[in-house]
Every structure is written in C-alpha cells, then in structure tokens.
C-alpha cells in the first residue's frame, strides 16, 4: 500500500490488493470486537486483567519516584513556613481534642442506642490496601489503576476508599493490579445523603474530576456551598457513612461538588468488601441490559 501504483509487476499489484483486504479485515474485526465489548462488557475481562498486570508493577515502581520528588518539594516548602504552620497546627490540635472527646461521647451513645435497637450491621473489614498508580489519560471515562489485584482478594464491584473519602469501585481485576471506576466518572452513581440534615441525594460523576449532586426529592435546593456529602448505603454497593464530596457551586436543581478524596494525591486506597454482596450480582444484570 505504499504507493498508488506499484508498477507493472503482477506480484506487487497483488501484494497491494491483499494488504488493502487485510486493512479492511482489520476494520471489520475491530468493529466486531467493539460491538462485543459494548454489548457484553465482561467478555474481555481476562485480557484486560493481563494488561493491567503488565503495566501495574511498572507504574508502581515509577510511582515511588514521583512521590519522592513531590515529597522533596513539599518538604522544603514546609521548612520555609515552619513557625506559622506550627502555631496553626497547635490551634487545630486543641480544637480537635475537644471534638474528639465529643465524638467519643457520641460514639458511646450510638453504641448504646444500637444495642437498644438490636441493629445488625456487618463488621467492615479491609480486603486489601493498594496505591493508586495511574489513571485513564485521554478518554471521557475516568478510571484509576490500583496496585492490588485478585491475589490480594480484590474482586469486581468492591468499593474503594481512602482515608479522606470514597474513591470509586473496582471494574477490572488482574492478578496484581485492578482498575477503579472513579466517583467522577459519568457512569458512576452513588446514593448518598447530606451530612448536615440527612437529605438523600444522588451523586453522579461529570467526567472532569467533579461530581454532580441532585436531591432525590423535588423541591427547594437543599445544598449550601461547603456541605459534605456522605454515602447512604442504599443499594448496598457502597458502605454507608463514607464521605464522598464537598459542595462547591450551586445550580438550579442541585449542585456541583468536588470529591473529597482526590485520586491524584491519595497515597493509599483501601478495598472493602461489598456492603451487601448480593447487590453486585443484582447490579450486573441491569447494567448488561442498558448497554445498547
């Protein structure tokens, strides 16, 4: 296919023709595979897992380097500003101690109340911890790569969180790495509620690192800038009471919020078992149906 006319050689002409056919075949195969992966997204899970395993360790190793470099810069910055920071931290610590005592009291009370109600709740334990070592670069989808895979017990659909909040949910699993659907992806929908007054809301990603929040009930816009959104546990995919996002701007029927756990600065992420394991099986069905 190098030139339009390879000359009088029959052999060259046939070669040109067959390479043309091969390219057409490539397009057709590609379209078929694309259709399969759109209709039945789980078909190529094994392949994707292998690819994750190939890139995961590289990313993990390089991650150390970039973190070290970042650490050097911020470390130097901290020294520069030490006196002021020290004062600030002391003030914060005082306030925190007070809050902690209050929180402990509330926790105690909560335990007593729960015992009184005989409320059953699964004990949440950690499946695995990993680092977030990469992300999707160029696509409308928002994925991150986590350095923990099925060898660590990670399974599809498990929620991922960091110390600061909800990160997302596992979608592809390799042996040593897995792919996380971030909260900010457009297809990610998290049932949540406002921390301030418990109003149930829906958190949906916007594909650009922020999330859209809408109240479940139509009415007055319940949000205020600075409000914290936490998961409600409805639906059973995500555990309740995990911080999700902070409201930054208001819109007519909802608002836009920033996820509390920024995957770019999250060092460790925790994979938790699905809050209600049956929910994952139930979720897999309609997802396959809605994909055209």
């Amino acid at each position: 296919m190098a030139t339009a006319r390879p000359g009088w050689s029959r052999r060259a002409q046939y070669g040109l023709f067959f390479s043309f056919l091969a390219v057409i075949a490539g397009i057709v195969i590609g379209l078929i595979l694309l259709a399969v992966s759109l209709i039945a997204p789980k078909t190529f899970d094994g392949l994707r897992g292998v690819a994750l395993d190939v890139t995961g360790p590289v990313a993990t190793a390089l991650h150390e380097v970039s973190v070290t470099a970042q650490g050097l810069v911020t470390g130097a910055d901290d020294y520069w500003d030490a006196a002021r920071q020290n004062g600030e931290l002391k003030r914060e610590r005082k306030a925190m101690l007070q809050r902690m005592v209050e929180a402990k009291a509330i926790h105690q009370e909560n335990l007593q109340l729960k015992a009184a109600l005989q409320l059953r709740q699964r004990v949440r334990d950690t499946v695995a911890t990993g680092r977030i070592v990469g992300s999707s670069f160029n696509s409308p989808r928002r994925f991150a790569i986590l350095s923990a895979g099925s060898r660590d017990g990670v399974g599809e659909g498990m929620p991922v969180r960091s110390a600061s909040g909800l990160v997302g949910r596992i979608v592809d699993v390799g042996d040593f790495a897995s792919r996380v659907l971030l909260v900010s992806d457009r297809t990610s929908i998290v049932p949540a509620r406002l921390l301030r007054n418990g109003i149930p809301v829906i958190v949906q990603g916007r594909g650009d690192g922020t999330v859209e929040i809408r109240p479940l009930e139509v009415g007055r816009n319940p949000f205020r800038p600075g409000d914290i959104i936490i998961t409600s546990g409805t639906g059973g995919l995500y555990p309740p009471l995990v911080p999700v996002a902070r409201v930054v701007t208001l819109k007519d029927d909802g608002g836009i919020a920033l996820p509390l756990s920024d995957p770019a600065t999250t060092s460790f992420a925790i994979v938790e078992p699905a809050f209600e394991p049956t929910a994952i099986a139930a979720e897999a069905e309609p997802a396959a149906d809605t994909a055209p």
Partner: protein
Amino acid sequence: MVRAALSSPKRFGHAPRPLALFVPAATVIAASLLSALPIVSTSGWFPDFGYLALISWRLLRADPWPAWWAAPLGFVNDLFTGYPIGFSIALWSATMLALDLVDRRTLWRDYWIEWMVAAVLIALNEWLHWRVARLIGADIPFSMMLPQLLISVCAFPLSAWAVSRVDRWRLGR
C-alpha cells in the same frame, strides 16, 4: 560532487540499525505504554499518545509498517489504555486506509497540510471516543472534550518531531 567524494569518509559504516523495520511499530507501542505512567489525571486532558505516534509515523512515511499492522497495534493500545477493546483496532486500521486515500488525492504536501490532516484525524478520534462513551452510558457534553482535543492538536508537532528523529536514528542517517 568531487568535493564530497574527497571529504573525510564520515558516512562509512552508516547503515540502518538492526531491526530498523520494527522500530516504528515499537515506538507506537511505547507511546501506548505511556498510559502506564504514574500520573493520576482527574480531568483526562492528556493526548492519546498511541494515536499521535501512529499518525505521526504514517504522515512522515508511507510505509512505516505493513498497513495491516495497525490492527494489532490498536489492540495493544486498547489493552493498555483501557478503551473498549476493538475501538483502536477499527479506528487505527481505518486511519491507515484514510491516509492512503489522502496520499493519492494531495498533489503537494507541506507542514501545514500535514498538521491539518492530523488535526482532523485527532478530532475524529476524540469525537468517536465521546460517541462510544455515550453508548456505554457516560453522556457528557462534547464541550468537555474540547480541552484535550486542543492539547492533542498542539502536541502533534512535538510527536512528529520526535518521530522524525527516531526515523533518522533507525536509518542510521
């Protein structure tokens, strides 16, 4: 060119590197692997490195690899970048075909025309990404794709430059 013939034989021993035939494809795979870099992007404004490398090579030379190689190269890209499998296979093969047609139609080429062709291809790539994401259920407005589209178009000269350097290196010039 008597003078050239008499000058010191600097150019002896210059030959294509071993495996020069496979260098272009290898650089495309390497570009696809850039997505394994430990950069966590929350906005997704990075260019599609694999595709940039592919069109840079194809615009620089008519025969960087047999045309059907685009399909396996696209497959590798799909695997590493997490696109739906088949997306790059189809798009990259179609790109090879489209650029062959462009080669036949254009009477003359200069840098601006190449950049324009690349910009059209990149825009098409982004648009298809957006369409496919909509099919899956991620229906974001197309305006959100514009920043990365601009960045990719601006990144094309860089990638074209890098590719031309690699090409000179592999041919031992």
